């Protein structure tokens, strides 16, 4: 492009002596533009950076600081440095460990169900172009627009033996309705709520990824005699693997942070859901019912590390599929 003569003498010329070549003068001129443009680059990211520092970095650092200190009547209301004492306590705390095991169990059960169902819906929708299929695509997605609190409230009504239709439906077959809110059934009931809420969203992501595949790819396979399910499994699924990874990470992070649904359902199933059902609920009740902010921060931070490491390992293991190097 245009090499302006004014920058010939620029001392910090981009091309060092050893690399002197005809293009050297051009490098020199772009570097002055670059420095101005660098400034613009920072200008664009500054507003976000401020929010990022204030509401992510500072709370994170503060949580870490709090987790290394204790404060209470025993310490005379002063913050006292206690090292990793809180972490030792957390990782020997049966309540925290039980909560962690519980969300791990939710991950193992709920994530495959959600993603499997979403993928199945997306694959079926991808083969159809009827009005019915378009309508059902929207209907399956609608729960995403319903806040988790409202979803959980609603399912609470449906599960309830007083309001819900279960009694009538099971009565048709002469059966007694199961108690969805008993402690033995609550796990499945929660899985159902979350599945209901999120399958549509994951389905839309996978569906729009499927739509970007060039159909000629599977035309060729079809001519070679591949069946519908074969095409779906061998061609379509591998081609949307980056979206699969993204959806899995969303689902994984969301499940480990499980809070809203069990909290809302607690008021109808008090006996089945204790206030420390998940690590997040435990942290909340520690902080706001017992004012143990230091220990609550430890729990939150420990959970955060778990989620971070978990999703990092997952992304690392699937880096080939996701295209992240």
């Amino acid at each position, binding site marked *: 492009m245009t090499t302006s003569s004014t920058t010939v003498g620029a001392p910090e010329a981009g091309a060092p002596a050893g690399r002197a070549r005809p293009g050297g003068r051009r490098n020199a001129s772009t570097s002055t533009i670059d420095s101005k443009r660098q400034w613009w680059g920072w200008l664009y990211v500054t507003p976000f950076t401020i929010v*990022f520092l204030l509401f992510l970095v500072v709370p994170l650092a503060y*949580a870490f600081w709090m987790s290394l200190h204790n404060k209470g009547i025993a310490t005379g209301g002063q913050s006292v440095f206690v090292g990793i004492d809180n972490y030792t306590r957390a990782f020997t705390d049966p309540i925290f460990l039980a909560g962690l095991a519980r969300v791990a169990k939710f991950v193992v059960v709920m994530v495959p169900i959600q993603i499997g169902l979403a993928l199945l819906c997306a694959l079926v929708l991808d083969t159809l172009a009827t009005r019915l299929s378009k309508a059902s695509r929207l209907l399956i997605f609608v729960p995403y*627009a319903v806040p988790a609190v409202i979803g959980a409230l609603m399912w609470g009504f449906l599960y309830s033996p007083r309001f819900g239709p279960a009694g009538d439906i099971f009565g048709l077959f002469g059966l007694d309705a199961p108690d969805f809110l008993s402690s033995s059934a609550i796990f499945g009931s929660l899985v159902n709520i979350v599945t209901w809420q999120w399958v549509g969203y994951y389905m839309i992501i996978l569906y729009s990824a499927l739509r970007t595949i060039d159909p000629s790819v599977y035309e060729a396979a079809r001519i070679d005699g591949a069946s519908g399910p074969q095409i779906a499994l061998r061609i379509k699924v591998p081609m949307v693997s*980056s979206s699969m990874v*993204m959806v899995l990470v969303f689902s994984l992070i969301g499940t480990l942070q499980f809070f809203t649904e069990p909290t*809302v359902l607690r008021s109808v199933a008090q006996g089945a859901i204790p206030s420390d059902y998940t690590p*997040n609920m435990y942290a909340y009740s520690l902080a706001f019912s017992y004012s143990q902010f230091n220990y609550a921060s430890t729990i939150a931070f420990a959970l955060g590390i778990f989620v*971070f490491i978990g999703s990092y390992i997952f992304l690392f293991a699937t880096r080939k599929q996701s295209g992240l190097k």
Partner: protein
Amino acid sequence: MATITRNTSSTASDARRPAGRAGGRRIGSHTFLLLMALYFVVPLWFLVVGSTKSNSGLFVGSGGALWFNSEFSLVDNVRGLFEHQGGIYWIWLRNSFVYAFAGGVGSTVLAVLAGYGLAKYRFKGRNAYFAVLLGSVMVPLTALTIPTFVLLSSLGLINTMWAVVLPSLLSPIGVYLVRVYSQDAIPDEMLDAGRVDGAGELRLFFRVALPLLRPAVVTVLLLATVFSWNNFFLPLAVLRDTDLLPVTVGLNQWQALSNAGAGGEQVWNLIVTGALVSIVPLIAAFLGLQKYWQGGLSLGAIK
């Protein structure tokens, strides 16, 4: 024959397949989709039906749980929403709008600026910045709620609208989406051509970049708005005044009270009606804006 095969290979191969099998599979697929749609819609149908019932009609009624009773109390229920506790429901709904709008628009503006800056400007530390950003997408935001609470309370912001709005301005995933989208959607040549013509950087942003980014902007805006609208943990932690609650926290309170409380506090009909009213705006927005978000939600997938 030659004309048929030249048409499109798909019709040709479809024609070759035995019609019965393909037809059977289509019926199977449609049945599956219908069942799925039923599963996802029936709970909402319960809300629609429930909102027409009186408090006692929800327990015992001619219609059962999934059909209308002979009495129709929708109007009474909506009136009840205006009367119960001085119509606080509508204040909650307004608060939800304020939080969702401020959080959604604010975080989108920040995300679009930052994502564009990261994609199109080469500055020192850009790669490190992006790496940190990518890592922060995986930080569970709820883990930040308790320290954020302590921080806000030391700033004296607890129990104000700011306590909900300010933290929801943070959307690392939004920045990430915009940055990935800008990379391909805004050709560098176009920006350079604009610069040669003497356009300033701001002008380039508004005149060249922003129109090209529209699908990403709509998607991020929807995601961020839904996120703020759904927010539960944060307002639950940082708000005390009933007047400041969003509708999610408010309805949850009514439900907890109705479960624990005596007859006068049991307002099941208002909870059901309130829940229905509160989900209408967002569902309407999604249905109305279909063509904008349907493609956009897959943005995040890395090619």
